[in-house]
């Protein structure tokens, strides 16, 4: 290992073994490995990142199957979630790209998965990841566990535009750290904290603390007492664990103590309104979105956010024009309590402060309402329930608008059909200017009549997939784009998570690209 200058995080012999595997793989050889996903994909220490980059650089990994979502069902007695890595050392003259895409696959829980008691993989959960991005991004795999490449782009964009909270805290002289640690072997003097109010982590809720008890700090010595300044008001107490699917915090205007299940952010009295703004941002749907997709634990293993992850949140410069509205809403919440209306107002103000586009707002909102709900409630989630009429109408509107923006002169019509076997078909007819609808112009080999064509085209597409699909323990939930003359039929499972506004925008891009003959098309029925 030393000769090859290989990094081995946490002195784990498994990593040392893993690092050598790629070098031993002969030409044409295929390798499959079952590994703990957190250390291989999600850990953020410098050594872990370096080891991951090294692995991507030395091992011809072709597929990553992240089983984190099914951590409690795949290996019921294992504590750590698992990942399957498949490496394929292709012959040099195979004609493939020198920088090929990796496949990232996420089997999920759903009613279908429960029925089948096997792995269910939706086609939308198979991501093609450019190797360059996979090696460069420390958060890529976490983002793809619940999101997609567009989520990675949005998060990357936020990081490019706004400094992390840690940088703002440093520039303003704020102190942040986890609270005191009682056990650990050392006995350091903590008398300066004696008698101060002690706030337990579980008492912290959104913008408030539920415990009015007068518990007092009573340890004379601590393993890590932390700086006295950390406990001086005003101090924002951020609960390390997730509460009801979101990070929560409370701004204390009195000196308080707290243990290491709480993260404190303490600043001078004149910065109290800035701390209020930070508190508002921490409670926003945008922060929820950011942390859910980037935290190494939340969403993958345990429900907490690490200190460094909290302070990696990009934050617009405090005092900018759009932030007074965030401050006003936070003050209203402090006075009247958090209501759904005030939460909506807070989200709107935060979205404005970050300058999010409407499509980004929908992306964040869909992640919070559908995906995080799916994470929390599994097969009982709204995400896997049948989409309502309202959801489908919003999907249709977004799909049409997405195409009309680029081709304003086209006529677009979208109709839904419910098929048996758990699927919905959204048939999108696109008519260029100067042509009338309903197949008045020739499609070359047949007329564009959905009643006669769709059945045959779908059948051929499904047969084509069946031939390609040979796994027995795994079911593929098709997510297809079937082209038929002037129509594109979007075929996806009858679950809300596939019919969100975010999906509609992505599908609009796919429909345009596919009808324009760009991208990957299988001519199954030509």
């Amino acid at each position, binding site marked *: 290992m030393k000769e090859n200058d290989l990094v081995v995080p946490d002195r784990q012999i498994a990593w040392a073994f893993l690092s050598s595997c790629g070098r031993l793989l002969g030409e044409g050889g295929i390798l499959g490995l079952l590994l703990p996903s957190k250390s291989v994909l999600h850990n953020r220490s410098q050594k872990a990142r370096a080891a991951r980059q090294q692995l991507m650089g030395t091992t011809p990994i072709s597929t990553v199957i992240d089983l984190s979502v099914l951590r409690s069902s795949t290996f019921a007695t294992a504590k750590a979630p698992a990942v399957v890595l498949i490496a394929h050392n292709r012959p040099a003259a195979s004609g493939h790209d020198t920088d090929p895409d990796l496949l990232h696959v996420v089997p999920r829980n759903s009613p279908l998965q429960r029925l089948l008691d096997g792995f269910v993989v939706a086609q939308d959960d198979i991501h093609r990841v450019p190797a360059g991005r996979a090696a460069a991004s420390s958060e890529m795999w976490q983002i793809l566990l619940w999101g997609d490449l567009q989520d990675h782009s949005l998060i990357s964009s936020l990081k490019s535009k706004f400094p992390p909270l840690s940088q703002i805290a440093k520039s303003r002289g704020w102190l942040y750290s986890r609270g005191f640690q009682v056990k650990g072997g050392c006995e350091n003097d903590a008398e300066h904290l004696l008698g101060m109010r002690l706030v337990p982590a579980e008492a912290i809720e959104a913008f408030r603390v539920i415990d009015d008890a007068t518990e007092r700090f009573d340890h004379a010595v601590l393993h890590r007492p932390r700086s006295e300044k950390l406990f001086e008001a005003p101090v924002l107490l951020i609960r390390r664990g997730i509460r009801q699917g979101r990070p929560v915090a409370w701004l204390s205007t009195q000196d308080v103590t707290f243990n290491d299940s709480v993260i404190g952010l303490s600043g001078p009295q004149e910065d109290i309104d800035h701390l209020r703004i930070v508190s508002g941002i921490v409670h926003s749907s945008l922060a929820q979105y950011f942390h859910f997709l980037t935290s190494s634990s939340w969403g993958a293993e345990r429900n907490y956010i690490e200190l460094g992850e909290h302070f990696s949140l990009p934050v617009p410069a405090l005092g900018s024009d759009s932030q007074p509205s965030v401050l006003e809403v936070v003050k209203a919440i402090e006075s009247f309590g958090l209501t759904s209306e005030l939460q909506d107002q807070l989200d709107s103000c935060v979205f404005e402060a970050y300058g999010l586009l409407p499509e980004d707002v929908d992306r964040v909102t869909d992640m919070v309402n559908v995906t995080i709900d799916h994470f929390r409630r599994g097969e009982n989630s709204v995400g896997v329930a049948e989409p309502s009429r309202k959801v489908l109408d919003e999907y249709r509107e977004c799909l049409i608008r997405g195409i009309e923006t680029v081709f304003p002169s086209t006529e677009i019509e979208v109709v839904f059909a419910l098929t048996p076997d758990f699927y919905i078909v959204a048939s999108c007819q696109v008519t260029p200017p100067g042509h009338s609808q309903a197949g008045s112009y020739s499609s070359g080999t047949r007329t564009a009549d959905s009643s006669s064509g769709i059945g045959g085209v779908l059948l051929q597409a499904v047969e084509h997939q069946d031939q390609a699909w040979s796994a027995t323990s795994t079911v593929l939930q098709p997510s297809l784009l079937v082209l038929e003359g002037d129509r594109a039929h979007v075929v996806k499972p009858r679950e809300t998570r596939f019919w969100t506004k975010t999906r509609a925008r992505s599908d609009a891009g796919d429909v345009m690209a596919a009808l324009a003959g*760009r991208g990957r098309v299988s001519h199954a*029925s030509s």
Partner: protein
Amino acid sequence: MSVFGTVNRVYGYVDPVLEQYLAGGIDRLVPDLIERALVKWRDGGFVRFDDYEANCTIQVFRWMVAERETNPDFHCVHPRLEWVQPTPEMFAAKESASHMRRPDIRLTIGDSAAWTVECKRLKLSDNLPRLYVDEGLERFVSGSYGASEATGAMIGYIIDDSPRQIVKAINRRVVEHAVMGAGHELKRRARTKRLLNRYVSQHRRSSHRKIEIEHYHADVR
């Protein structure tokens, strides 16, 4: 690739009239976004940390993002920077990305349509015209980049010498290159009002698939 990679998402056939109409629109989007981003960068004085390639590419990317955000026509196009996570300081040209791997830009529409943008510095010395061909254009022609794509783009940052001299040097190398040769040279695009140094080159790959490369030479001297 595992069994997952054998499963396609898109099937069927498209009416040729519709395909031609939409392809014209889609194929205009990407070059238009690249050119508008370069013009915005130029109008701001080509501000950059230094002439290092990554620092120029980050600025092009920055202006692509800005153009996309302000122009709804480009909302369906997603620019992505490979290999590098820029910081706000890099966007503001106050911090160098020279310690990072040289980035490329990839533009996507939907999940399956993608355009690779290769970026190179240009001047007559240091063999840069040759490197533009051997380590840039050649990758598109050989299929190392975008094997399934029919179009690609290259951005050259002219840091010294005249654009005319540079394109001549590039074409000399194209003609003598083993996998290209005569007929593969860069040809000047019809002059546009926005950016003058635009070229196009057309190539037939060994796989017999054609690829057309748009070239944008930004005179950042």
